[in-house]
């Protein structure tokens, strides 16, 4: 039992565990597909045909691929933001609300600057910054509530999601309502000059892809290669020890929330400027929640999360094809839900195996 014998043992152990890991994950995906297939069979549809239709629905034309990318962008941003909080061991359930408030601030900026005659690009930039600020502020709140009020961030976030939606609804029905109209369908559209231009024949503006890529790369770099990322990771794994090592945990908690919120706000601004062009009650489109699922699914791995986000985006876009078949549009949601469920379950299994091993 000397040093020389010990290290190869640990490495072989590590590679074995990785295979186990992979197997479990693949197993989870298969299980999710099986259960969804069962549901499809009950609904009198052919599962294989349905899946193939999703694939077709997502990739069968340039327009479709661009639509997938367009819905990948906000998702990858929310997921990326969430990687910060997850790394710090925080559950930022309030992400959806942060996207909504980001949209609120963004739309607010447009309303405020509408008549100033400034160059559209300046206005758009300011609106994005405002959106980021909105997300930031809304994300700091659960952080502050946790640190100074002792409120678990899960409950704080859940509550703030409702408040964010209530805020949006209040604005839509109140101060920002269309003249003579009281409908939840949203505020007046922003001026066409503020809408991001699409690539011809698509609903995708290239700018947002650049933003998403920058965001994803930023996260990967920050979490992998910087002192900041490592400190967050340390806090997430053992905040007491991290504190004793001299990391100002409180500040890092807030930073993690704040950065996550900025990502949410930018995602919200993208939705406003390239998709919805107005404020709607569900301004987050569920991207905040979906981001949580993706992050959990990849066990908080930055590069993988971009890929899985793409897969999820493809699912929700390809899903339209199922509707042409007359199938319920919730199918993609069902599949996504089961995927996460099974992955979380296999995480439990894996932990048990680790303990035994």
């Amino acid at each position: 039992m000397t040093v020389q014998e010990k290290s190869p043992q640990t490495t072989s152990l590590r590679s074995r565990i990785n295979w186990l890991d992979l197997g479990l994950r693949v197993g989870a995906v298969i299980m999710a597909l099986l259960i969804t297939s069962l549901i499809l069979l009950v609904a009198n549809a052919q599962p294989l045909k349905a899946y193939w239709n999703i694939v077709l629905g997502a990739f069968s034309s340039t327009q479709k691929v661009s639509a997938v990318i367009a819905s990948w962008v906000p998702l990858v941003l929310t997921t990326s933001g969430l990687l910060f909080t997850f790394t710090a061991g925080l559950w930022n359930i309030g992400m959806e609300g942060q996207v909504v408030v980001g949209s609120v601030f963004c739309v607010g900026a447009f309303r405020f600057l509408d008549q100033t005659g400034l160059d559209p690009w300046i206005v758009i930039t300011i609106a994005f910054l405002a959106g980021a600020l909105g997300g930031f502020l809304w994300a700091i709140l659960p952080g502050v509530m946790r640190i100074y009020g002792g409120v678990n961030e899960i409950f704080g976030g859940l509550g703030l999601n409702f408040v964010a939606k209530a805020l949006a609804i209040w604005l839509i029905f109140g101060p920002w309502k269309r003249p003579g109209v009281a409908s939840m369908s949203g505020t007046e559209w922003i001026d066409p000059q503020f809408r991001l231009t699409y690539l011809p024949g698509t609903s995708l503006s290239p700018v947002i892809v650049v933003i998403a890529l920058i965001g994803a790369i930023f996260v990967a770099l920050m979490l992998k290669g910087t002192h900041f990322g490592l400190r967050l990771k340390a806090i997430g794994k053992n905040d007491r020890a991290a504190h004793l090592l001299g990391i100002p945990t409180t500040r890092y908690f807030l930073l993690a929330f704040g950065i996550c919120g900025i990502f949410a706000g930018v995602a919200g601004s993208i939705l406003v400027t390239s998709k919805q062009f107005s404020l709607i009650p569900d301004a987050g489109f569920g991207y905040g929640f979906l981001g949580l699922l993706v992050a959990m699914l990849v066990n908080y791995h930055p590069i993988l999360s971009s890929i899985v986000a793409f897969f999820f985006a493809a699912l929700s876009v390809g899903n339209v094809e199922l509707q042409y078949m007359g199938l319920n549009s919730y199918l993609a949601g069902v599949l996504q839900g089961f995927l996460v469920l099974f992955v979380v379950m296999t995480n439990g299994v894996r932990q048990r195996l680790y303990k035994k091993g």
Partner: protein
Amino acid sequence: MNIELRNIHKWFGKVHANDDISLKITSGTIQGILGENGAGKSTLMKILSGFIHADSGEILLDGNLVKIKSPDDAIRLGIGMLHQDPLDFPPMRVIDNFLLGQHGGLFLNRTQVEKQIQELSQKFGFQINPDAYVETLTVGERQQLEILRLLWMGVRILILDEPTTGISANQKEKLFATLVTLAKQDLTVIFVSHKLEDVQGLCDRVAVFRQGKVAGELTPPYNTDEFIQLMFDKEIKIGAKTTACRPEPLLRLENIGIEDYRLRLRNINLTLYRGEILGLAGMEGSGQKLFLQMLAGIKRPVCGKIMINDVNYAGKRYENFLKAGISYIPASRMEEGLIPGLTLTEHFILSEEHNELLISQKEALNLTQSRINDFRIKGVPYSKVEQLSGGNQQRALLALMREKLNLILMEHPTRGLDIESSIWIWKKMKERCADCTSIVFISADLEEIIQYSDRILVFFGGMVSEPIDANTTSVDELGQLIGGIGW
């Protein structure tokens, strides 16, 4: 019962855990088995008690060749092992614990067993109420219970694997008394330990193991240096005390008061000198931990001043203490000291102050490798800390300390470590002291406190003694103070 082991070999993969071990143990003796962690002691004991099988070799009991295929076999042959963690069933009564281990017979005979327990207790001087719930017993009592249970099952050879970890000095004393009684009744006791002082104080003979072999056998009178020579195949000298930087004060406590929900400490006045080692003695929970955490900036004093360089640090944040060159090394390594899931390298990056954004992997690796070498951590830079053994975790924790420090605060710095590690850690600490770093440490081991401290504070129920000169005190004097006598 006499035991004879002949040419026992045991391989685990490439590791030769027991390499041609031959040993004779006669009835009525307490046989010590001493060795570093991983020297092969536990392997041999597991072979003897049937948990694993030797690859080759013979076991003779009273001259008869036996095959021990399972723990059951061992018990039937009269060999019982007391594990590090007693294998009992806490939510039960003592008596049920016995009944569970009963052999044969469909019906449980409660009264008879109860009578037997009482007889045995009398014979060996145990004091255990058969109707008590096991969960209400202390670790020491559970040990006694387990021994009693083994005796009741007819064991004549009792193996104890590291029995003194996790029990108090008082309980240890009782255990040793019991073992002596057992030996007098002609039982064979095999006492496995890596603690020199335990073995020296108890055993009639000691076999020292090193790297799977019996390095040698010793009988009283014992000589510590001889033991160390056998265990490590080299001489390790316990360093002498240093007083190089003594005259210059580092820190002054003025009328400090600290309290938590149980304890109130008041009016602590103390000047700590550079390069000084201050030992804190006392029973667990007497206030020494509060005191240490106060010095670390974790626990804020309710009154008084902590003066460092004419600045009052009382009420300042932990970060300020850290900046003042104060480093706190917590006792619970995996809970407070290290971060499970992170590698050694990552720990070293975290421990240093960095203002730049990007991590320089190369620099970090170099630092880690040099610290690994320097602190002789058995691991590689990308080892996750939870993969390290306890001793190596402690070394890693020490290695995380920054280069220039004014004050190191330690809780139980050598608890659970083997002698070599302990001695080595103190050698490292002494080097720090030579650089005029002061050390304040808590230990439950009075020998350690006297051995390494310059001055000693004794804590008892919230009271703090005047500093005691370590050169003029004794274990007895400290022991009395700790127990509340002489205040």
